[in-house]
């Protein structure tokens, strides 16, 4: 499953000449520069109580990750340099063992504009179950299921600051492919994903992507209008059987719910040399995000229209958040969220959010240790499939934090995209040391 393309800005770990040892050194060396650095080291243990779908997968795993930030500001010049490396070592999954520069940029701020050059993370959007409009960065997909961690995106970003709102221009010269769990990892497709994608653009990963965003707030309303033209961050998947590669126009190219259960798909999955090849289309996407904040209520909407992935489509997430203060006669706050996710492609959608509700709650104890409990469930309105998540965290002393996270999949039918991970119920504990 290893490609042989020589030119790559951001090599995946197994392409690096030195791997684990160098990464371990990087992780352990970071605290030695404390003073200039701030960051954290996290030890993670995972237990998967259900026997795996595939014999190559393990029932438990250990992992060590670290991140740090170094900031240099030139006094009175409005200039700064920011560096944020990240690395992870995983016991079993050599694709989850990876390093990345989350941020490495130079920025100049002036009274009416800001210019940023380098690798950066940008967040757009207001909803919680997913952020449809958020398209600048590729997700670091192997950090966790539904991870919102991002890979640093190379860019030039000019922000114009006006009384009538901000205008952001992005030029992105390089594309970063999605990360996938390896053969020994969990949360993966039933057959390996080839880490050598196919691009619609002749320039492949060097296609120049462009984006524009206008954002502003008026009273209780915050809103953003965005436009993106370039390489889709979400691939389609082309089945590859031996030397045969289906084209993007094939009805089986879209690895979607309606095709999972077809006889051809089942035949494909049973063949020993089956592979999935990510295919990255050129797309145009217009997006709107909107939030109304009033009292204990927050109303949210994100919607996109996208063309270029075989078929034009629209998608939306809308929801409401309400916070109860001082619940149970204590200092605790209880936040409740209800969101609905819709995608016009229906079961053809390459997402678990085509007709799904998200119901969530967060209990913040407001204590010295910042203890909190976060629970959520995604309910598929058609199949009734449930994905449950529960997270609890608490600071220990001043420099440590303990967090427990669980993930369970219930009632998943064979034609739901979640079927790939239905045996990946997980209990995870993380202990983080901050420096």
């Amino acid at each position, binding site marked *: 499953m290893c490609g042989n393309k020589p030119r790559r800005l951001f090599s995946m770990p197994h392409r690096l000449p030195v791997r684990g040892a160098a990464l371990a050194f990087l992780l352990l060396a970071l605290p030695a520069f404390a003073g200039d650095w*701030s960051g*954290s080291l996290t030890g993670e243990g995972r237990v998967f109580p259900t026997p795996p779908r595939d014999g190559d997968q393990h029932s438990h795993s250990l992992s060590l990750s670290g991140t740090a*930030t170094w*900031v240099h500001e030139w006094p009175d010049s409005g200039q*700064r340099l*920011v560096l944020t490396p990240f690395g992870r070592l995983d016991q079993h999954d050599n694709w989850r063992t990876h390093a990345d520069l989350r941020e490495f940029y130079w*920025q100049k*701020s002036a*009274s009416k504009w*800001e210019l940023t050059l380098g690798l950066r*993370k*940008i*967040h757009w959007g*207001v909803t*919680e*179950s997913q952020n449809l409009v958020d398209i600048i960065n590729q997700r670091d997909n192997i950090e*966790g299921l*539904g*991870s*919102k961690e*991002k890979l640093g995106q190379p860019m030039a970003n000019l*922000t114009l*600051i006006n009384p009538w709102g*901000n205008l952001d221009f992005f030029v992105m010269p390089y594309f970063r492919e999605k990360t996938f769990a390896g053969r020994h990892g969990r949360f993966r497709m039933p057959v390996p994903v080839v880490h050598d994608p196919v691009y619609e653009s002749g320039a492949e990963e060097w296609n120049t992507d462009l984006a524009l965003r206008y954002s502003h*707030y008026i009273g209780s309303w*915050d809103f953003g209008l965005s436009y993106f033209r370039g390489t889709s961050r979400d691939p389609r998947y082309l089945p590859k059987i031996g030397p045969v590669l289906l084209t993007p126009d094939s009805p089986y190219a879209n690895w979607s719910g309606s095709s999972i259960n077809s006889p051809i798909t089942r035949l494909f999955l049973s063949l020993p040399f089956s592979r999935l090849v990510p295919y990255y289309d050129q797309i145009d996407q217009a997006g709107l995000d909107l*939030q109304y*904040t009033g*009292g*204990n*209520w*927050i109303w949210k909407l994100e919607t996109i229209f996208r063309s270029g992935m075989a078929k034009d489509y629209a998608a939306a997430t809308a929801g409401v*958040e309400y*916070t109860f*203060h*001082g619940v149970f006669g204590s*200092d605790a706050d209880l*936040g409740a*969220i209800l969101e609905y996710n819709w995608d016009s492609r229906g079961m053809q959608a390459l997402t678990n959010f085509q007709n799904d509700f998200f119901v*969530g709650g*967060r209990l*913040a104890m*407001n*204590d*010295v*240790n*910042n203890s909190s409990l*976060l629970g*959520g469930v*995604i309910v598929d309105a058609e199949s009734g499939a449930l*994905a449950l*998540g529960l*997270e609890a965290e608490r*600071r220990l002393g*001043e*420099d440590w*934090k303990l967090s427990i*996270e669980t993930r369970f999949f219930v009632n998943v039918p064979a034609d739901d995209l979640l079927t790939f991970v239905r045996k990946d119920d997980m209990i995870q504990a993380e202990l*983080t040391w*901050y420096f």
Partner: protein
Amino acid sequence: MKNKSWPSRPTPNPALLLLALAALLAAPGALFAETPEELGLKIAQEASNRDKGYGDTSSELFMVLRNRNENETRLELRIKTLEMPGDALRALVVFDTPKDVRGTALLTYAYADKDDEQWLYLPSVARVKRIAGGNQSGPFMGSEFAFEDMGSQRVEKYTYKHLRDEALDGQDCFVIERYPLNTKSGYSKQVAWLDKEAYRIHKVDYYDRKDALLKTLTLTDYKQYLDKHWRPGKMEMINHQNGKSTLLEWKNYQFRAGLTERDFDQNSLKNVR
């Protein structure tokens, strides 16, 4: 569902604390009020007027949280404020410790005549989010200071009553009561001691909704800036009902450092570090 950014962190607002307290620093001169209520209001108004014209400030705040067993937790914040026309105020608060929330920043636009607007920046996900300011009586970062103690406490947000004049630690003081107009306040009333010389607050007793004494705030180590503006160096809040206390220490106060609105917009919120 793995979304560390949801929902909001607590909505801290400590930058406004001093201004709030300043609003209670009252006026000298002859006060010929007919009723205790009018006199109380005049004292509060004069205190507020005396502090106007500070322009902008920046400072560092150290918080020490102590529980019954004398276990301590330390928090460090950086705070900038900007005085705006129409009795409005902008404040930027950045957390340096606890280290797990380092770089988290809160931007507040406070107004005299409408609800505050607040945005929170979460550095781990590079997300700026507008947050609801509905929380009044909850604790700020687990301390004995409630959000409403840390927030904007403008004259208009209370009604007042002058109780008596009394010496406190050898200083002649006005003793006034104030009653929150916000129904979400955790207090039925607060009793404040202000010295007649400069209208600095030296002590505040907080009474809970059942009218029982809940907390006492003591303000000490006052210093004057720009020959006009008084700020306490230390503030200690003792909770009588749970035995916990919180000490605030203010350091490196700077007035009129030349901050502008640009230092208080959403772009600056992302760049504070």
